[in-house]
């Protein structure tokens, strides 16, 4: 019996084509917004995860807590930390904001002073040429490896091994020979956000020490044992490195794990807030549904009267109208979901990131619309059901 009611509801929807279409669209737009926002959220989270992976999720950085009381990290510390439980390797790491002068262009960059273990510890990969090796470190060579993006931005192509680049370090520009091009760490995101996230250049830490006049390092990067990387290890290591340096808490360990957590948290807060705002538009479309149904009830008063006179009970009439509004919102949300997923897919193809299906949001957007159709359809359906046949037939 509900089957024939559903068919009858579908017919009513078809009859009021333009009104049904408009109502449907208003629901579709709201659902589209919700789906796109959640899509951005899912893809963003995925990107953060994979980015963190390329940046070395099994890495941690030991550095001095704050600028005061500066504990300096030395070669001996590198050896010592490398032998701690759960640590695979240790590498000295220096970092400084810099400017690159290349082909007459000035580009912002961040200079990392690394050694030959950089490949494993902070996961850089050479797409052209080579990475910094132990000879460069021994010789304090003026060579560097630059990010692919820097090459593209200056020369318009990625293989510029052998070219020269001037880096602003220690107060003046110094010339370096480019020996390798590194795969950019933050793929899709960086192309959108270059300018905010600076491009990286890598030089031997010994060279950097000479330039800035230090014999110690800012940080020591650790490659953690594969299975050992978790929150607990970060705390244990923090205690251990501090005791090695006879300090209470002068050193901190930045574990990418927690940074990833922070980033994904921020992302999920943003998407939740935006989804709620999109949810408001869904409520508005619910009101549209109610309006459309009320008009429909008004137009079909006589029809309701006839049906009541031939035996329709209040429940029959109410079911009929409720079904109509639920079907309207269901179709509208399906259209919105299809459009939203399509837009997400297209966006991912254009930005070159992996498409992640926001399953949870699709399901909740659909259910929410259907519930909304029922909720906002109740009042008109009740109104229809309560019509007295004698008034309706006048």
């Amino acid at each position, binding site marked *: *019996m509900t089957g*024939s009611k559903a068919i009858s509801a579908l*017919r*009513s929807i078809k*009859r009021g084509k333009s009104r049904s279409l408009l109502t449907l669209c208003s629901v579709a737009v709201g659902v589209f917004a919700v789906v796109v926002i959640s899509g951005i959220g899912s893809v963003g989270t995925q990107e953060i995860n994979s980015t963190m992976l390329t940046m070395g999720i099994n890495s941690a950085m030991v550095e001095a807590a704050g600028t005061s009381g500066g504990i300096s990290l030395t070669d001996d510390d590198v050896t010592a930390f490398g032998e701690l439980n759960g640590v695979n390797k240790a590498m000295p790491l220096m970092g400084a904001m810099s400017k690159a002068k290349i082909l007459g262009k000035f580009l912002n960059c961040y200079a990392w002073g690394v050694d030959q273990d950089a490949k494993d510890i902070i996961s850089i990969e050479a797409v052209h040429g080579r990475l910094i090796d132990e000879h460069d470190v021994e010789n304090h060579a003026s060579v560097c490896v630059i990010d692919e993006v820097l090459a593209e931005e200056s020369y318009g192509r990625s293989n510029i091994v052998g070219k020269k680049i001037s880096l602003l370090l220690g107060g003046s520009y110094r010339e370096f020979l480019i020996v390798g091009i590194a795969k950019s760490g933050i793929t899709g995101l960086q192309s959108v956000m270059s300018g905010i996230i600076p491009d990286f250049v890598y030089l031997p830490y010994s060279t950097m020490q000479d330039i800035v006049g230090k014999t110690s390092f800012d940080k020591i990067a650790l490659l953690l044992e594969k299975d050992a990387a978790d929150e607990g290890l970060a705390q244990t290591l923090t205690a251990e490195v501090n005791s090695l340096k006879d300090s209470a808490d002068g050193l901190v360990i930045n574990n990418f794990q927690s940074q990833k957590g922070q980033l994904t948290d921020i992302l999920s807060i943003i998407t939740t807030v935006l989804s709620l705002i999109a949810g408001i538009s869904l409520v508005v479309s619910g009101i549209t549904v109610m309006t459309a149904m009320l008009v429909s009830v008004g137009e079909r008063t*006589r*029809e309701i009267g*006839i*049906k*009541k*006179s*031939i*035996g*329709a*009970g*209040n429940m*029959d009439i109410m079911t009929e109208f409720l079904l109509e509004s639920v079907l309207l919102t269901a179709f509208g949300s399906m259209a919105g979901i299809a459009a939203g997923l399509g837009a997400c897919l297209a966006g991912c193809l254009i930005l070159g990131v992996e498409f992640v299906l926001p399953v949870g949001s699709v399901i909740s957007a659909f259910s929410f619309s259907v519930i909304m159709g029922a909720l906002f359809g109740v009042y008109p359906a009740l109104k229809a059901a309560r019509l*007295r*046949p*004698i008034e309706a*037939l006048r």
Partner: protein
Amino acid sequence: MIITENLTKIYSTDGGVKVKALDGISMEIKDGEFISIVGASGSGKTTLMNIIGCLDIPTEGKYTLDGSDISLLGSGELSRIRSRKISFVFQGFNLIPSLTAAENVELPLIYRKTEPSVRKRTVAEALEAVGLAKRANHLPSELSGGQQQRVAIARAFAADAPLILADEPCGNLDSRSGTDVMEMLHGLNRIGKTVVLITHDEKAAMTADRQIRISDGKVVV
């Protein structure tokens, strides 16, 4: 089948004036009778039909339909009684414009939750009985007035209710179709249905077993 005792109906208009449409109507209609309720327009016959048809409740008085006291029932029960015991044939046909003839005839059976196979059979029989089997899939807009009224009668036939209330069924029809419709109503009476014909047409009224005349809300003897 129908017993009314002192049925009175008073309407309040917007201006606060009270109109007494029915004034103490007492009558009895036995099972299987073909009765005609006759009166001029404004006599109260439509109001009487609405109360007999459980579409409205009396202000005073008692109405017993097939043994049940209607005056005590709520709107939910009223509609159940209506669906089981009464079929209407209206002056304006009152078919659902978006449904075909067959679907219109099927509607009361759907509300009564009849099984689909039984429904299909009953609808086919009903349309056959009024001679519209070939027009089963036509919409009311594609049928003449006479044909639409015959669909309405088929709907009443399919619903198989013991009481048929016909309110000026020939009012919008030409005389030929009108005669056909009257013949079908008598046919329904012959198979045992109680038929109450409300009309101001003397000729049609005289085909009934008995006439109840109404004037100014009262039964005129």
